[in-house]
């Protein structure tokens, strides 16, 4: 049985195909202006990579903000449910996933079947979301994907006094003017962002075993800073942390289609 999960986010679209509980294909694209176009492209691409058409799927679950624009979807699921299920599939003994996306951040606690127990969500304030790092990367004129490596060279990290993205941007500009080292600044940014995300996660009580998903999880500096802020060891994911939502949607598709989720 071949099923798929499709996660149409505001910045990127992801699709994962699983067969008998194992991932056989995945694909990530930058989101198009219309969610319908993103869905067609990402689903077309992922199925083409295994020589099939989306029409041949046994079941498909869609999620993300564009979840209602996926024409092959048999049902839709919340991002919360999908992230829990996807994280559980990859790290079965984790009980919490912290997902930092481009425009939001969430912490989800789940049970030993990957079902949601409790969650908390921030999409109201840009601080503590991927947008924070994006804006800072622009201000510092470095590439977002290089921030982790640059921060690793920090000798004397700065402490930021502002949480607000707008105020923090001004603060780092004055730090640059003061001649502070860029690696020390970026390290300080990671700490500031991590403390914001950590307080979100703590608001639903931390689980003993935590994992992390979303594009920001690829930044080793953020990963380490969050570990430090939470005072727990975060279990890394063996897959691209950006596709966890789509994977969860695929696992739910498997369950709905009557197959074995593979656990």
């Amino acid at each position: 049985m071949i099923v798929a999960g499709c996660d149409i986010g505001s910045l990127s679209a992801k699709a994962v195909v699983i067969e008998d509980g194992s991932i056989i294909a995945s694909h990530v694209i930058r989101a198009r202006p219309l969610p319908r176009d993103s869905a067609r492209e990402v689903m077309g691409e992922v199925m083409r990579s295994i020589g099939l058409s989306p029409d041949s799927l046994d079941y498909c679950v869609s999620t993300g903000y564009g979840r209602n624009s996926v024409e092959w979807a048999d049902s839709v699921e919340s991002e919360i449910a999908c992230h829990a299920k996807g994280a559980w599939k990859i790290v079965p003994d984790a009980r919490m996933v912290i997902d930092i996306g481009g425009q939001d951040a969430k912490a989800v606690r789940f049970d030993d079947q990957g079902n949601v127990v409790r969650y908390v969500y921030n999409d109201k304030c840009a601080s503590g979301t991927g947008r924070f790092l994006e804006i800072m990367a622009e201000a510092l004129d470095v590439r977002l994907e290089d921030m982790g490596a640059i921060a690793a060279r920090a000798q004397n990290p700065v402490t930021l006094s502002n949480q607000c993205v707008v105020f923090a941007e001004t603060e780092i500009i004055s730090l640059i003017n003061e001649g502070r080292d860029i690696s020390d600044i970026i390290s300080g940014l990671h700490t500031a962002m991590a403390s914001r995300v950590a307080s979100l996660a703590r608001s639903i009580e931390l689980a003993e075993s935590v994992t992390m998903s979303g594009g920001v999880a690829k930044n080793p500096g953020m990963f380490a800073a969050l570990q430090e802020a939470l005072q727990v060891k975060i279990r890394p994911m063996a897959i691209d942390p950006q596709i966890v939502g789509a994977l969860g949607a695929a696992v739910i598709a498997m369950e709905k289609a009557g197959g074995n989720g593979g656990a």
Partner: protein
Amino acid sequence: MIVAGCDVGSLTSKAVILNDKTMLSHAVVRSSFRPGDSARAVMDQALDVAGLKMDEVRYCVGTGYGREKIPFVNKVYSEIACHARGARHLMPSVRTVIDIGGQDCKAIRLDDSGAVVKFVTNDKCAAGTGRFLDVMARLLGVNLDELGSLSAQAQAPLSLASTCTVWAQAEVIHHLNENTPIADIAAAVNQAMAGRVAILARSVGIDREVCMTGGVAKNTGVLTYLEKLLDVKIRRLRIDPQIVGALGAAFYAWREYRRCAG
């Protein structure tokens, strides 16, 4: 007897010179990176207008976020105290002062004697501070002081869904791309600003009369929306609302000097 008040804010610095209780001059300059330099520049300008020299100032009180770095002050006072004192002088019946600065917003409640009974400040989030308007004016390609008159020309005002300055920026860009008239967007920006300030003001409790201080008080759009949201008339001050903190500081300077001089 000459005394002075100097208010070094994040975006602008203000100075007021008094001869006893009469205002001789005032000045407003844009703040530079060094609060000490800003203080010196604005004082020099105010002294110049009054035809005075620094050594003729008997006492000077500093306030504002850079107050600890003003080299020539005798004493510093909190911004809350200074805004309350300045507003009270201009309008003895005032009971609520809403001050919107470049990077913060405060609501202050006074009792009948003019003492501060309660205040609340937001300096954590740019939404609801002058910074929000600054960012939006830049995005719209207009001057900050044009936002008020622009919003009066709005034909079909819209509203912004986001509170966060960063997300609201994305919304405004979207409206610009849709060719929404600038005036309509300006109205939405002012309304969003007033919405945030209203929440802060309500948390301190609105008591009549109400006045507004700080640079944003010159924006009639924000003022009008705020009046509507709070269902109260906001009284206009007879001087530049930006210098109220410096005026209050100058009155404290006068009192301190009298106390020292016995």
